[in-house]
């Protein structure tokens, strides 16, 4: 018998059926991963679709994907800080500042666009580094540091934009095109889908082989095949459906690529382990010899950098940087996306995919309500109610998790 299956208290789980029982069992135990969020999403989509049949139209979904990218990227950074149990309230300001810097350098100073982008992103990284230093040196709560940052960088943004207040990015620049008009050709989209599915199967297969060789239990080939085919079908359908109108935007692909990279970093590297450990029990992490300060700094840098990238995307999508870029609910939306995606505010729990799902939930609500022509007062109320509903689905499962002893 496999080394990890010898305890007689374990029910045996073999092959495809075993994998299924496993999932069911985890579900009963409340350990559902992202399933509840997905269910919440389906509920929201159905309701909006009933209320306005345009909601699930290809054109609207294409908009949805493009609109998710900027705040989604920011939410990805937020996931990282939340994972170590800290918070960054300044992502909105940093994204606004980054957009402003980009616009001033690119349009105002006439620098090449890549240099302007690099400067903005670098500025984000530096901001994060400063946060990290303040946090490590003085132990100021990150809430306060980043609140100060929120104010300071908002001021800086206004200052950078100066008397103009608003700067247009040229429509024919590559950056604006990237955010507004560049879509992945159909053939390439399908190729991506196939590559993803094949890669999922291949990596799973190799992993299973290695486990078997080491005498450990492993997923059966049939289970792996089912999983990859399912992925292929879903992706192909998405590509096909979005392709009915404009297709998959490069900006969305860029966002998804970032999610995948972060997923890899968080789950498959030593650094990722350290992040979860620091979030779970910082003292234990320190005693295990982890350089806790470096982890905090890296995470703040990542978060601010992502905020800067998100700001660039937002500016590109709007083809302008202005005083109110990054203001308003960017902060709350980014944090909410992370939390809805299952990231704990107390640290140590969450995934990169959570940011993707969370932002789609939030953008779906916002887009769905946009289609419903409501008074602003009612719209606010309904937004709140829908948000709550979407999360209750998730939380009911978590309740069962607690009652099963996995608080």
């Amino acid at each position, binding site marked *: 018998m496999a080394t990890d299956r010898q305890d007689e208290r374990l029910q045996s789980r073999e092959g495809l059926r075993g994998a299924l029982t496993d999932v069911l069992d985890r579900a009963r135990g409340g350990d559902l991963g992202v399933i509840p969020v997905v269910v919440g999403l389906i509920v929201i989509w159905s309701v909006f679709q009933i209320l306005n049949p345009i909601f699930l139209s290809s054109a609207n979904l294409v908009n949805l994907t493009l609109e998710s990218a900027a705040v989604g990227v920011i939410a990805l950074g937020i996931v990282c800080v939340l994972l170590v149990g800290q918070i960054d309230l300044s992502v909105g300001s940093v994204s606004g500042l980054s957009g402003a810097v980009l616009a001033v350098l690119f349009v105002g100073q006439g620098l090449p666009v890549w240099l302007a982008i690099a400067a903005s992103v670098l500025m984000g990284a530096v901001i994060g580094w400063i946060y990290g230093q303040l946090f490590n040196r003085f132990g100021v709560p990150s809430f306060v540091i980043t609140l100060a940052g929120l104010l300071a960088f908002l001021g800086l943004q206004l200052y950078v934009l100066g008397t103009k207040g608003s700067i247009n990015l040229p429509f024919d620049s590559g950056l604006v095109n990237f955010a507004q008009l560049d879509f992945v050709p159909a053939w390439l989209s399908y190729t991506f889908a196939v590559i993803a599915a094949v890669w999922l199967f291949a990596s799973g297969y190799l992993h299973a082989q290695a486990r078997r060789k080491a005498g450990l239990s492993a997923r059966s080939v049939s289970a792996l095949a089912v999983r990859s085919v399912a992925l292929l079908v879903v992706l192909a359908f998405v590509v096909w459906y979005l392709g009915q109108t404009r297709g998959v935007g490069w900006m969305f692909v860029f966002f998804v690529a970032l999610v995948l990279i972060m997923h890899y970093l968080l789950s498959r590297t030593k650094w990722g382990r350290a992040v979860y450990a620091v979030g779970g029990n910082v003292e234990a992490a320190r005693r295990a010899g982890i350089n806790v300060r470096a982890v905090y700094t890296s995470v703040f840098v990542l978060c601010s950098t992502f905020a800067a990238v998100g700001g660039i995307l937002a500016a590109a999508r709007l083809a302008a940087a202005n*005083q109110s870029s990054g203001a308003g609910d960017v902060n709350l939306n980014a944090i909410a996306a992370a939390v809805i995606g299952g990231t704990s505010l107390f640290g140590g729990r969450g995934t990169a995919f959570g940011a993707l799902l969370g932002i789609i939930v939030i953008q779906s609500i916002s887009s769905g309500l946009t*289609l419903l022509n409501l008074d602003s007062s009612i719209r606010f109320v309904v937004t709140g109610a829908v948000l709550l509903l979407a999360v209750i689905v998730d939380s009911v499962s978590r309740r069962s998790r607690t009652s099963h002893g996995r608080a």
Partner: protein
Amino acid sequence: ACGSDSGAGGGTGSASGGGGDVQNAKVAFLMPDLASTRYELQDKPLFEAKMKQLCPSCEVIYQNADSDAAKQQQQANSALAQGVKAIVIDPVDSAAAATIVKSAQAQQVPVIAYDRPIPATPADYYISFDNEKIGSMIAQSLVDHLKAEKAEGGILQVNGSPTDAAAGLIKKGIHSAVDPSGFKLLAEYDTPDWQPEKAQTWVSGQITQFKDQIVGVVAANDGTGGGAIAAFKAAGVKVPPVTGNDAEVAAAQRIIAGDQYNTISKPIKIVAEASANVAYEFMQGKKPAGKTQLYNTPSELFVPTVVTKENIKEVLFDSGIMKAADVCTGEYAKGCAELGIQ
């Protein structure tokens, strides 16, 4: 909270995707913010009413961007996805709205700039009174009043939100009147989010600082003006003339009570109806020509009226913009009576 869900759905009258002819056409009416009450309370109902009259089967898609340019872009995109035949937009950010014009025009949907221009990319039509002018008008009215009173001292300037483009225009206008007036500009302040509380706090500080040097306050809207007045009241000193803008009911009451010096009444009814007319013409496939040409756009401009105690009766009440019953409540009844408002 769930109850309101169904009510919301009812309002939409979920029409089918793309109405081909003008009969069941849709038109988007995109407003910028909630800081001023006028968009929800006046522009929207007036535009809808006029549209209903012109085209009973047409549907107006109203959205408010809550001061967020990106949100306005999303709303415009969603309107386009719903197949609107024209977009009437009051841009949050005049520069950023260029994107919206671009993508609408790319889909052969005409765009009517409402209230604020879109200079970078010419829209198809522009209907407005401009904010800069509003700023200069309220300030000029105050300055003239102070000169008439032979007041000596300086002026405080309370601007709108530092992150709001419209506030920037008003601010420019105010400066154009205050700077050459001969009155010293004691201090000015950009009120975050147009919050009256913030304006009150700031003015309170200036009262301790400048004491009786303050002879007047130019406030960029009625809310911040109200905050300034409350600051003087709370400091227990005499309230100097304070301006406002938007002609809210609360401001009318303060003017009647003598607490506020002026506000400004925009002929929203005229503007909203004019834009409905223009939009309808565009929807029929016509190309209306403007009265003038501004920013390369056929344009129509209307002039607002400054309201003070002297003319409040005729401008706001005799014209039917406000009803005495709404305004002359409680303590304001006496003032109304004095001004002959019933």
